[in-house]
């Protein structure tokens, strides 16, 4: 990436003052306009997320009544003559009072009564009165969503797949990347081309025989098909790590060699500590990939106790379609880890994605 070096353009001296002032004004306009557009656009990005969180804190009725209100608001009810009645702020003879709507009357009118003195009733236009509402946050959606389906089980499975897979990927990819970056042999060059060309291969071309293979050895409906292949390296991460290894000075390897270290020891004690930033980058991207992947868990996992969160969440939605608020709560839980990871490692994301941009 080129570093920005500002070189002043030589401008004709005559034009200088007026032209400069104009330019400054022009640049300021551009910047203000840019900020304005970005701010407007960021609303489009953020509003769905706010909508997600607010929906997860409403109950079923609130979700249907107040879709445009980001706050979980509910109508206040009062107990009157053994019935729950809606409370309204009403104005009678210029006096503001709180009254319950006891009965609807024709013509958009309603019979109102003071809960303290229910015997006196007033007939008023309902549209003119404002209902009394208060914040009613349904935190209990979260524990409920986590318990109506075995979400803890899904979480454990997802963590298992994500982290053992990550360990396997990091181990195998760094080994292979080291092999492709540090050794000369007749077939290593051609093999590297083969490795790179596998990026173009659609997953579907190999998926069916792999499924048949895993079925034969009894791995279908276990977590193994999602974990074990990670131990055999993949083209994206090998490529990224190799690019990084190439930038590590060869002198370090040679010094270790002179000290009598074997290639494997050199790899373990010299290269790996050097490659920490690159390993963190591919590790984070693997986390996101494994955490969010739906396609392979859907294909390989059949019984409920083996599902990952992605499959569990989709099935949860299919089974409890009318409980949208619970589905939204579960969705929030699922996106929290990637968001946390994202905010703690923004820099890695915005740089790393350029290289690993194709994954997933």
């Amino acid at each position, binding site marked *: 990436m080129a570093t920005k070096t500002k070189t002043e353009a030589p401008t004709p001296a005559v034009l200088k003052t007026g032209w400069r002032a104009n330019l400054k004004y022009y640049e300021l306009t551009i910047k203000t306009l840019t900020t304005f557009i970005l701010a407007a656009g960021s609303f489009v990005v953020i509003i769905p997320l706010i909508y997600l969180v607010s929906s997860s804190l409403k109950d079923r009725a609130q979700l249907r009544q107040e879709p445009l209100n980001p706050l979980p608001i509910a109508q206040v009810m009062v107990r009157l003559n053994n019935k729950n009645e809606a409370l309204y702020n009403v104005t009678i003879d210029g006096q503001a009072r709180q009254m319950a709507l006891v009965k609807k009357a024709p013509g958009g009118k309603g019979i109102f009564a003071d809960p303290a003195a229910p015997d006196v009733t007033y007939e008023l236009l309902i549209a003119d009165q404002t209902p009394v509402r208060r914040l009613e946050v349904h935190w209990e959606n979260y524990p409920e969503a986590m318990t109506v389906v075995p979400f803890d089980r899904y979480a454990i499975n997802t963590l298992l797949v994500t982290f053992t897979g990550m360990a396997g990927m990091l181990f195998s990819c760094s080994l292979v990347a080291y092999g492709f970056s540090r050794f000369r042999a007749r077939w290593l060059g051609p093999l590297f081309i083969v490795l790179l060309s596998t990026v173009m291969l659609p997953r*579907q071309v190999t998926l069916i025989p792999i499924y048949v293979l895993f079925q034969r050895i009894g791995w279908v409906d276990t977590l193994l098909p999602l974990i074990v292949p990670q131990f055999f390296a993949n083209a994206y991460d090998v490529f990224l790590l190799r690019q990084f290894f190439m930038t590590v000075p060869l002198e370090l390897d040679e010094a270790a060699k002179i000290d009598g270290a074997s290639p494997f020891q050199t790899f373990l004690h010299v290269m790996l500590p050097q490659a920490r930033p690159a390993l963190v980058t591919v590790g984070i991207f693997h986390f996101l990939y494994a955490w969010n992947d739906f396609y392979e868990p859907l294909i390989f996992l059949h019984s409920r106790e083996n599902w990952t969160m992605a499959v569990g969440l989709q099935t949860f939605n299919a089974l409890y379609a009318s409980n949208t608020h619970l589905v939204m709560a579960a*969705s929030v839980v699922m996106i929290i880890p990637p968001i946390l990871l994202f905010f703690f490692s923004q820099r890695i994301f915005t740089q790393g*994605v350029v290289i690993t941009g194709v994954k997933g």
Partner: protein
Amino acid sequence: MLKQFDIRRWSLAKREAAAGYFFVSPWLIGFVLLTLGPMLASLYFSFTDYNIIEQPSWVGLDNYAQLFQDPLFWQSIKVTLQFSALALPLGLLTGFALALLLNQAIPGVRIWRTIYFLPSVLSGVAVTLLWILIFNPKIGIINQLLALVGIDGPGWLSDPYWSVPALVIISLWGIGQTMIIYLAGLQGIPTDLYDASKVDGANAWQRFWSVTLPMMTPVLLYNLVLGLIASFSYFTQAYIASSSISGGELGGPVRSTLFYNLYLYQNAFRYFEMGYASAMAWVLLVIVLLLTLLIFRSSSAWVYYEGELRGRT
């Protein structure tokens, strides 16, 4: 007898080669077992009738012949191309426009970049479930907002005419990854090119047309090819949206979201027509190779690589 296996007797070059092969062996084994072998096997399966339980029986080119007469196969290609025709140009425009904006030296640019990138790290399942609610014809926020300005919004994901555009909108929301790639491309343009054009008196618009755009065409091309290939693997959003909207009918409503990969999945893992699905996978491979080739061939007319010009002058 074991002389050739005694490492101490090997030459240095031979030892180095052996170590190299040792290090790449995890990938090599994986390549043979999980890529090359399965590729050949799926090629073989594509010429057979195979349901996993019984042995595959050879049927020659029947699967392919049947495929080209299968209206659902053509429907799946149509849906995939419809999606690409909408999502790719729109994604290119918005992604590139955003990258241009985020490449300005404005205060807080890092925060804006973070916000725009955020949706692309989120789970496809959770995101799709959220958008299903957003697109809900009755209680969803989009139709509520449209109602405020007096528009009676469509059924979106439950309307065969609007289901693909709705999926395109979801994909545009996750534009962050594309945007970052464009941004990196923009930052890779040498500043001296801009300085030189400023000296020549080019205004901002001229600089965009004669420096930024030509320098960006390789990146635009790269994303276009990847986008096209990705649309043939498009799965999660279409699976979840169709299976939860139209009561479990994959690719619904009325097959308007029967994407190529969804139909392949259906054949392989719902009907267990492994031979037929393998034929689809190989057709997909050919499509991907052809598309890539076609775009790269035609690109010489409009893609500018910096090296080319240097070669000519």
